[in-house]
């Protein structure tokens, strides 16, 4: 089964992408992005692994003992930080979007909708509120 880790990585990325494509909830979407990212963890750690090797820390074992690739481990550490930053930022955006739009559904929150007229604004409280409510179903 020497191809299993790589196949798992590809599968994870595909599944995560499918989740993002069909997601109807931003929190779920952030989770799916995390799944995509774990594909990179699996791939990198899989590529750096060697049977019968120790972790690259020569404390209990003397230097020279066969160890797995430390570079991949360092790269994954950076990758984890990337994941943490992205999750934090996306959750902030989600929180704020929920407060503004009252929904977590990506289909209900659109960047900008057609047919906007500056005279039509309804809610005076939102200085930069939405212009048009007639969101097209783009299907």
């Amino acid at each position, binding site marked *: *089964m*020497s*191809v*299993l*880790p*790589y*196949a798992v990585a*590809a599968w994870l990325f*595909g599944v995560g*992408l*499918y989740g993002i*494509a*069909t997601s109807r909830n931003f929190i779920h979407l952030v989770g799916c992005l995390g799944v995509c990212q774990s594909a990179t963890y699996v791939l990198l750690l*899989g*590529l*750096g*692994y*060697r*049977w019968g*090797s120790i*972790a*690259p*820390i*020569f*404390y209990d074992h003397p*230097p*020279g003992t066969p*160890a*797995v*690739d*430390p*570079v*991949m*481990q*360092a790269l994954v*550490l*950076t990758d984890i*930080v*990337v994941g*943490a*930053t*992205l999750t*934090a*930022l996306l*959750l*902030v*955006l989600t*929180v*704020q979007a929920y*407060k503004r739009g009252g929904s977590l559904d990506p289909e209900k929150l659109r960047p900008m909708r057609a047919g906007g007229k500056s005279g039509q604004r309804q809610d005076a*409280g*939102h*200085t*930069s509120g939405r212009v048009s409510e007639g969101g097209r179903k*783009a*299907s």
Partner: protein
Amino acid sequence: MSPRIRVALLALSGLILLPCAAQVIAGLPAFGSTIAQYGERINAITPEARHVANMVSAINFDLRGLDTLGEEFMLLAAITGTVVLLRGRRGEGNSERAMRRPGRAVIPRSEATVLACRIAGPLTGLFGLYVVLHATVTPGGGFQGGVILASGTLLIYLGEGYAGWRDAIRSHWLDALEGGGALLFALCGLAPMLVGAAFMQNILPLGTFRDLFSGGLMPVENLGVALAVAGGFTQLFLEFMEETREAEEPDEPGEETA
């Protein structure tokens, strides 16, 4: 596009990508058979060259220290961005005091909870410090230790309540901790240049292998990272918690949109 078309597009691209991925996987070295020359070389020379036992720390703080510098500032960017975006509506002025949420009952804590938190808090802090300090020797390092330290502060919230937590933690201090830690790391890079060495060159005495004081410049950089991460993550907790406290006020326009 309807979800059906979306899935069809995905499936179509999957059909094209599947044989390509299979070919790539077949072309890779078999899993677990060998590791790259770069990693092998680092394992071979670094214990002697830098007197450190933890190869991952050696890569993060010495061989590829620039990556970690970038990573550290990536975290700083994310936390600064979080603060800007979460405070945007509350306004900067309110960051000093805890916000109240009228109508929400304050549930008294049981004494067991308070006691457990008061015991576990210092222990968590101690463990965090241990992980930070032993970066060059055993698994761990500034990032991991910093996160542990930051999560230790959450025990204050659990034990002493929100107001107590906010009294103990000041946003400005966290900014100073985060910025100061990052500055320390960046200066560790620049300082060697003053004596004519390369950026982030390890010019301090290397210490003894498997000892707490090993790795020369690495423990200093590590400390900078730990400070920045601890400050940054606590700031993150603080801002997210503040978000749950926000009073239901009429929508105030953000400062830029006003």
